[in-house]
């Protein structure tokens, strides 16, 4: 059992702002999580997590079921608190501003931090076009030219444009599961968030569809800071620059993906990676 002090020391030693990837410039921190505790009613799911999310990179959050990784990511855009009985404590800084400060409007925060969910959830009453434009339209944007441009750009970034460009007025629900999920990615990036949270975005998809999502992520991280929850270690190894390993509501280890997989500093991480549990 490590103490708060140990964890802080550890965070300092692997502090991402000082980590330089080979051949890359040092990354700055986009989001800084401090002492994050969260849960439902009396049960605590996250037991105090500190983590720095680096800017314009993919950070993977992995761990066995029930380790709190989904709750963690849902705290990053204040979606967690929408569930009745949800509790949050601690700080989440976005560019140095605590998003849990009482002076912050959660609706405005969610504009800046987008989310893609585990199961594809396009709006069933809307066309493909309207799904992508939804975030802007619901916030009052009416300029058709602007919307047209955003829809095309977003669908291209989500690698879906070629497949749907002639069917923009068809229902989003008529697409395949993998296409629906890319539609949801397009919908999320259409409002141009700074951070994109992805909660196991490929867990309901087949390998081909998964590959397309991962391909899109590699493109997206050029513009966005991405945090992806996954229970799939191969996926973390493929797409993530940094990986955090959660276990029983605590952050066990966080570092560069290659380092974490090849040379984990914690025995628990090593046992998980080698498939001894989880």
């Amino acid at each position, binding site marked *: 059992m490590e103490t708060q002090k140990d964890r802080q020391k550890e965070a300092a030693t692997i502090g991402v702002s000082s980590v330089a990837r080979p051949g890359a410039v040092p990354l700055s921190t986009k989001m800084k999580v401090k002492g994050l505790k969260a849960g439902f009613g009396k049960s605590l799911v996250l037991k105090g997590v500190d983590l720095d999310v680096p800017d314009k990179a993919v950070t993977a959050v992995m761990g066995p079921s029930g380790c709190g990784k989904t709750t963690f990511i849902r705290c990053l855009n204040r979606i967690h608190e929408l569930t009745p009985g949800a509790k949050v404590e601690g700080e989440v800084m976005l560019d140095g501003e605590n998003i849990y400060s009482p002076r912050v409007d959660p609706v405005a925060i*969610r504009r800046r931090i987008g989310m893609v969910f585990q199961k594809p*959830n396009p709006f*069933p009453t809307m066309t493909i076009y309207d799904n992508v434009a939804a*975030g802007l339209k619901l*916030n009052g944007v009416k300029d058709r030219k602007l919307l047209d441009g955003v829809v095309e750009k977003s669908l291209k970034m989500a690698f879906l444009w070629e497949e749907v460009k002639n069917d923009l007025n068809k229902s989003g629900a008529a697409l395949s599961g993998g296409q629906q999920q890319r539609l949801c990615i397009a919908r999320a990036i259409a409002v141009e968030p700074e951070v994109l949270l992805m909660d196991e975005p490929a867990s309901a998809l087949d390998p081909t569809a998964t590959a397309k999502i991962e391909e899109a992520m590699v493109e997206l991280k050029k513009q966005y800071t991405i945090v992806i929850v996954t229970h799939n270690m191969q996926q973390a190894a493929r797409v993530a620059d940094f990986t955090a390993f959660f276990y029983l509501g605590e952050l066990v280890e966080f570092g560069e993906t290659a380092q974490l997989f090849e040379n984990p500093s914690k025995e628990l991480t090593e046992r998980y990676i080698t498939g001894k549990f989880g």
Partner: protein
Amino acid sequence: MMEETPLPANYRRRQLVNKAMTVLIYAAVVIAIAPLLFILAEVAYRGAPVLNIAFFTHLPTPVGVPGGGIAPAIVGSFIMVALASAIAIPIGIGAGIYFSEWPEARLSTVSSFTNDVLAEFPSIVVGIFVYVVVVLATGTFSALAGGIALAIIMIPIVARTTEESLKLVPKSLREASMALGVSRWKTIIRIVITTGRAGLFTGILLSIARAAGETAPLLFTALGNTYYSKGLLQPMAALPLLIYQYGVSPFADWQAKAWGAALLLVLTMLALNLAVKLTVGRRFSHIRPEN
């Protein structure tokens, strides 16, 4: 060739029981729908002969004078149901949204329960209540009182169906919208209600059908009227009231007209229910179940 498996000892008995049960179930179905068919046949047989253009457009004639129609009752029913809808639909939908979207609120639990009680209330009691509160207060039987009484019948139906159909909208759609930085009320109006709109529509139609056929709440409120009313603060005729008044009268001509009015009312019910069936058919096609 494989050897045939010997039949279990009780196989023949099971076959017989199966047949007997099938016959019983078919019999139950026939008995269940027979009353509806008999009523439809009887009402059509007795009501159809009096239906003609005058029946729909003319004022009632005095007893003994042939001809005439029930126009004031048709117009009265229409006005009072419209008035009741104007009151009940916004209130019912508002309450339904509250029950569905704020289920954890104390007030929501309590009012949801009272809504259930109200839905089961004997409609004659609603009529007496409105008599005391509106008729005695205004000093006159009136269309307004009738509309209010019908609204009280409609509100719980609209509220309950609104709640049920909004609850069917997956939570993930609300989250998807909120995650785009859309406020809660816009999420409810533009995503939740839009997705569940067929259910809302169904509830509205069902409540209108119910209100159009109610007699008891109108007895002490709208009272009935032989002529067109000159305003909402006058007694007003309505189809169910007319059926009641003409049906219990000793005059053959009035009784025949009561059958005609009954046929008209039954056809209206059928049309509304058919409309509901047609919407319900498409109701869930666009909502994937959340598992």
